[in-house]
């Protein structure tokens, strides 16, 4: 496929998204048609996007990067130029593959909104979000990037507050959009600092001094003070969007409240725009980073990972639990990127490429299994109309396929072999392990310590998903809604199936995917990884060029397990030919049968962890006991336990109260008395007459 068809595919994808927006708005009256048209266009666009991305990635760095203008620029400052280099192609692959899977899912999922909400509008915003996200990845100049970045935030805002009848949806929408816009403010300032430096370098401040090709390695030309300011602003701006810990409080509010296909899109793709931004800026624009940049990113990543999973464990709302896990996985990705920055500082290009590959690989993995889990949660919500795990249970018998897909997602996110989560965390471990030897300063202790924290995160994630899967799907249904749940529609299962297939493929064949990452690491860190890392013609994944680097082959493990299955089967034939299996009641210590109320609940499951980490959670529990005549014979018992959201109560709420108090005091300036207004002008006049002349 020569370069011409790549532009065609790309333009085809963009037009298909646009067509999706228009089709679903036009057909808003007839819901079925709107759903099929809107999501169909999105799926088609996704396929074109995948084609263009894979073509660009397979071409390698030699061929010229396809750049073209959307349409001739009409406004004086704005040039709508797009560029598909390796990094953009990789993220285009992520957004397009998710678009296909989510669109297939959404056709079935939209049935939940028939008659209640306007499906055409949902499909329109869904297509708009995909279009603007794709444009964010392809934008080739700062002005256009900020424009589509803001449009993306806008369409995500409409998706989050889609069911605006519910007050919490409105509150979450406003919180999301305010924090996202403050982040964009930081980005505007940061990009303009780069523009200022580029303008000085090139002499004129015309529209082309915004272009990203001019920004390449601009950091070396900037003064250190301005460069660090730009770094911090970029970290804040992109940190808000990707849910880094101190800036994460909007994420657990916004993602669960959106419709499930939208929250899958938000968690799977929108967060990755923050990662794309950080990667583009830190590796492409700001030149060789000082050491403290890498240390900051690595420590923020570690803190995000640990706190994300700890707060996830305390949630018993299924989608909020998954939202907190997004924060955890973003932390893991940033650990990879932070380590890569530190290696770049000490000029270990191979290790930098390895850490960057680990981070980007985990970005892809997280997009896939997080979307899968959100779709599963959406199917559960669709069937039982509740997200509270305490009311679910026994769904595996009523929704077997959804349960199977959710289980695969749970195993993948808990980084257990042989699925893709394990591979990307294994790469991160290898990068951290080999990082110890790179410097002699005290900072090299950070690598093993963050490795240990990564292990803690992985184990806690496993505990969290045992709780999530076990309490939601296993044992007996705890409520009437859970008992009457029915399996999701075939299109929803198909959507989830696509993601399961992708997870399994990325888990078992890491080296083939690593080949796609080659041009990205070659562009950003200067090293092509796959020749070094894929040993035994692609079967085994190595971790470093020296012969004694650790090796892993998930395919080998799976194959060994298949062969060894003969042992238990042989034992069964040898010993247990006459053994019968009988179905009986669960052991109930002689009482007359177990009721669902006796099962272990989500709160109970996470109680030990809440006690161990009570310094962080500061749990509060109240037991109200009503009784008729004696306190020892309670008629009803109400138990309520609450975990304090530290960041919100300690930082954001006091800040908000302070700003409003100052504003109210300032409002007294406009107190209504004409005399006061005259005095303001009189004083201004006197001051100017005295001092300004």
């Amino acid at each position, binding site marked *: 496929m020569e370069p011409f068809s790549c532009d065609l595919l790309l333009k085809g994808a963009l037009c298909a998204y646009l067509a999706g927006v228009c089709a679903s708005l036009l057909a808003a009256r007839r819901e079925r048609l709107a759903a099929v048209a809107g999501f169909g266009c999105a799926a088609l666009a996704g396929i074109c996007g995948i084609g263009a991305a894979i073509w660009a990635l397979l071409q390698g760095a030699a061929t010229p990067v396809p750049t073209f203008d959307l349409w001739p620029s009409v406004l004086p400052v704005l040039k709508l130029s797009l560029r598909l280099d390796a990094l953009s192609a990789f993220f285009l692959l992520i957004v397009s593959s998710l678009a296909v899977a989510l669109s297939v899912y959404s056709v079935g999922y939209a049935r939940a909104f028939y008659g209640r909400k306007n499906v055409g509008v949902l499909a329109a915003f869904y297509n708009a979000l995909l279009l603007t996200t794709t444009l964010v990845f392809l934008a080739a100049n700062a002005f256009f990037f900020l424009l589509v970045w803001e449009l993306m935030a806008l369409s995500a805002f409409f998706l989050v507050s889609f069911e605006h009848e519910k007050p919490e949806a409105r509150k979450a929408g406003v919180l999301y959009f305010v924090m996202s816009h403050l982040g964009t403010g930081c980005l505007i300032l940061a990009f303009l600092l780069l523009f200022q430096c580029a303008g000085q370098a090139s002499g004129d401040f015309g529209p082309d001094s915004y272009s990203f090709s001019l920004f390449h390695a601009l950091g070396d030309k900037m003064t250190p003070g301005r460069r660090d300011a730009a770094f911090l602003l970029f970290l804040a701006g992109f940190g808000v969007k990707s849910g880094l810990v101190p800036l994460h409080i909007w994420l657990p509010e916004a993602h669960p409240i959106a419709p499930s296909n939208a929250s899958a899109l938000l968690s799977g793709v929108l967060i990755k725009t923050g990662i794309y931004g950080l990667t583009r800026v830190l590796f492409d624009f700001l030149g060789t980073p000082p050491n403290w940049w890498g240390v900051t990113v690595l420590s923020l990543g570690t803190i995000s990972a640990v706190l994300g999973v700890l707060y996830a464990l305390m949630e018993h709302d299924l989608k909020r639990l998954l939202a907190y896990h997004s924060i955890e996985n973003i932390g893991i990705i940033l650990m990879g990127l932070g380590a890569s920055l530190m290696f770049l500082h000490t000029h270990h290009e191979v290790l930098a490429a390895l850490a960057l590959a680990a981070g980007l690989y985990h970005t892809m993995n997280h997009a896939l299994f997080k979307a899968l889990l959100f779709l599963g949660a959406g199917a559960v919500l669709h069937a039982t109309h509740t997200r509270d795990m305490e009311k679910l249970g026994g769904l595996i018998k009523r929704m077997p396929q959804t349960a199977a897909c959710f289980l695969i997602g749970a195993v993948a996110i808990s980084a257990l072999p042989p699925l893709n989560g394990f591979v990307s965390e294994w790469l991160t471990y290898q990068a951290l392990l080999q990082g110890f030897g790179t410097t002699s300063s005290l900072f090299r202790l950070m690598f093993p310590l963050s490795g240990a924290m990564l292990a803690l995160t992985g184990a806690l994630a496993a505990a969290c998903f045992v709780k999530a899967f076990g309490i939601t799907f296993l044992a007996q249904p705890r409520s009437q809604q859970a008992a009457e749940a029915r399996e999701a529609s075939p299109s929803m299962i198909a959507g989830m199936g696509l993601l399961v297939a992708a997870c399994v493929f990325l888990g078992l064949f890491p080296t083939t995917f690593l080949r796609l990452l080659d041009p990205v690491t070659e562009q950003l860190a200067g090293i092509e990884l796959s020749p070094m890392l894929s040993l035994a013609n692609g079967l085994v994944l190595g971790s470093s060029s020296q012969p004694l680097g650790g090796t892993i082959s998930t395919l080998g*493990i799976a194959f060994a397990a298949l062969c060894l299955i003969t042992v238990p089967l042989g034992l069964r034939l040898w010993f*247990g030919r006459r053994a019968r299996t009988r179905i009986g009641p669960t052991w109930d210590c002689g009482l007359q049968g177990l009721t669902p109320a006796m099962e272990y609940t989500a709160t109970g499951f996470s109680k030990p962890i809440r006690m161990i980490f009570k310094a962080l959670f500061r749990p509060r529990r109240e037991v109200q006991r009503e009784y008729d005549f004696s306190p020892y014979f309670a008629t009803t018992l109400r138990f309520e336990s609450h975990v304090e959201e530290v960041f919100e109560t300690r930082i954001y709420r006091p800040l908000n109260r302070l700003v409003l108090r100052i504003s109210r005091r300032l409002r007294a300036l406009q107190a209504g008395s004409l005399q006061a207004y005259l005095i303001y002008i009189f004083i201004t006049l006197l001051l100017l007459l005295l001092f300004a002349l």
Partner: protein
Amino acid sequence: MSLDLAGILVQTALLLLVAPLVTGCIKNWKAKLQNRRGPRVWQPYSDLAKFLAKSMVISEHASWVFRSAPYVVFLSALVAGLMVPMVSAQAPLSLFGGVLAVVGLLALGRFFLALAGLDPGSAFGGMGSSREMTIAAIAEPAMMLAIFTVAISAGSTNLSQIVQASQAPAWRLLNPIHAMALAALFIVLLAETGRIPIGNPATHLELTMIHEAMLLEYSGRYLALMEWGASIKQLVLMTLLVNVFFPVSLAANASAPALALGFAAYAVKLLALAGAVVVVETTNAKLRLFRVPDLLTAAFVLAALALLSTFLFQ
């Protein structure tokens, strides 16, 4: 790079046979120390044979997760076992994964074991799963830090490399780094296998049992697989501990005398470690559940000290 099929078969057989023996020895010696006669050393073999022959009762609420969990636990332990060097320095499946893969496989087994505990819907299973996952989560960083210390000094996470590195001339029997890492890993071993200070493998008392709570609903063939898997996991961890810190006379090549010497040394080391476990079990009482994290944090601090010492002393 070639996978010698013979090595794999021998190691699998070795794993299957030695694991129940170790559990039997520990039970027997513990009884002797408490001057009881206790069960015979090969009692576990007969238990397993009995369970395999008996027919099963499966709870009505259980799903296919309950039925597939025994196979996953058993196979993950077995595959992990194949990646650990027991007799010869080169583990049969060492190409497919190093120590991180072993830890990952054991975690996979634990994941499905906990799910199986929750499936029948009884409170015991839920409590067992919750405690198992919590303790494992707290033990994980200590184990990872100890492994990191050892891997850093050896330069790779591949167990054969670690073992060969510690056979190098500069290696002293127990330098301070390895001593602290060994202590940390010993505590983690006790936590992972649910031995006395953390859990009590002998009783079915709901206050103390963690591992047994999850197996409560199993019977017949599945119970055999579960028990066997648990003992293989215990063997894998003990072998890891033994061969990494005391890599004395591991067979460098496949010649008969080297293998025999290696096997003998391995047996001695294994039984010595089992003895140490028995001594610890009889001299200690079980810790309250919320004191267990303090113990495991102590293990984490030990591993961190080991890491620091590699940085200071080198």
